Each structure stands twice: as structure tokens, then as C-alpha cells.
């Protein structure tokens, strides 16, 4: 079966979703990400959905699940690159993705993850 590639980027993982995912592929991504967070001790997960033309309730739930599981494993999830039409549609569909952090692009998403790590480092020094 096909897999969505997961790249290591510093202490974070980067996933760029470039295909229209069928449901099994989305479920496989959820499982792969969870095991890689643990394997690499990743502190952040960036999911780039700029190529996705739609996010329906299944993909929305996958994003929510990934965010919830990574939080338990001490990693932050940031979804980046959501298209404006997708955001409008998601709200009307009834999904607010309240547990998911978002950023406009990969650069800002990475900055968000780094700023959280620096905060923690600063706390440690107190």
C-alpha cells in the first residue's frame, strides 16, 4: 500500500500531503506519525495541506486525532497551508478543528514549534 512520506526536520517531523488521500491512507498516516514521534523523540509535527483541495470530516478527524495523540507524546502539531476555500467549507461543515494549531505556511509553522521549545528551555533555567 502507498504511504505518505514523513521527513525529519531538526527536532520536528514534516508531512506534505500531495495526493487526494483515500481513507485507509489517512489512517496509515496517523499510525506512522505516532510511531515516528516516539522513534525520533520529535517535539513538533508540521502537516502541510496546501495541496489539498478539500478537507472533509474524515480528514478533519484525522488532523484532530494526530494533534491529540502528539500532545500526549509531548509534541506540538501545526497544520499549515490551508486554502481559504477549505477553511470556509470546514466551518460550514461543522468542524472547527479546535484542538489543532494552524499557521499560514511551513516557515511560520516551524517558528511556532521553535518558540514553544524556547519557552520550555527558559522555564528550565528558572
Amino acid at each position, binding site marked *: 500500500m502507498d504511504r505518505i512520506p514523513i521527513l525529519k526536520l531538526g527536532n520536528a517531523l514534516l508531512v506534505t500531503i500531495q495526493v487526494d488521500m483515500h481513507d485507509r491512507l489517512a489512517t496509515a498516516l496517523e499510525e506512522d506519525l505516532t510511531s515516528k514521534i516516539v522513534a525520533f523523540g520529535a517535539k513538533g509535527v508540521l502537516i502541510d495541506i496546501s495541496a489539498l483541495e478539500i478537507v472533509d*470530516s474524515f480528514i478533519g478527524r484525522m488532523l484532530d486525532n494526530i494533534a491529540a495523540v502528539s500532545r500526549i507524546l509531548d509534541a506540538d502539531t501545526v497544520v499549515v497551508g490551508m486554502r481559504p476555500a477549505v477553511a470556509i467549507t470546514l466551518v460550514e461543515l*461543522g468542524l472547527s478543528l479546535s484542538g489543532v494549531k494552524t499557521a499560514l505556511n511551513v516557515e511560520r509553522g516551524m517558528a511556532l514549534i521553535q518558540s514553544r521549545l524556547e519557552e520550555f528551555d527558559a522555564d528550565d533555567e528558572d
Partner: protein
Amino acid sequence: MPTTRTDRLDIRSSDDVVKVRQQTRTMAVAAGLSLVDQTKIITAASELARNTLDYGGGGEVHMEVLEDGGRRGVRMVFEDRGPGIANIEQAMRDGFTSGSGLGLGLGGAKRLSNEFKIESTPGSGTKITIGRWKA
């Protein structure tokens, strides 16, 4: 109402749900829908195609590009011969699910469409019609 283009797809696997999304986009572009309207009708179609597969045990969708006077749009009919829906009012409510989903499919698909009709007979199947017109 003249129909300018029609198509029919089987919904038997999650790959078919992807095909329904892709074909819906082709129809929505042919009807001249805006990007936001395309996104809405494709998302609604994805929800209903998955329902057809997960709750109806598979089925089919008929889609057409419609022209009515100056108006253009897309209409889709999802049909299955599954167990049907005993309580439609309950099934339409956000958060209600008889399976493992979020329970947003039917209510969400209705909100994302300009036209929505659901007919279901327990024991013989469900037929859901949605439409989106060019603004």
C-alpha cells in the same frame, strides 16, 4: 430542465470515494461554479459517498450539470440498497452517528448544498439528492 452532461459512478471502496470527489470537481468546473462553491459541493459529495459506502453497504451516484434559463449548477443523486434510515430527523442532527464517524456527514452535506432531499425506507435503501447552483 436541460441537462448538459451526466455521469454515473459505483461506490464500492474508499478509492471510489476519491473518484467521486474528482468527478464532482470536473462537473462543478463545467457548471462554472466559483472555487468556494466547488469546494463546498466536492466536500458534500465526499461525505455522502462515504455514507453510501459505510452505512449503505455501497451503491452508486448519478451526477449532472444542469442549465435552467440563465442558471447553471450541479446535481448529484446518491443511492444505496442498504438498511435505510429509520429516523431521518435524528440522522440529520450533528453529532448523531450509528457508526464510528463524527456524525457531521448528513447535516454538513445539507449546509454545503443549495438543494437537499433525503428519501429512505427502512430495509430497502436510501436516496439523497444534493444540488449547488452557480451564485
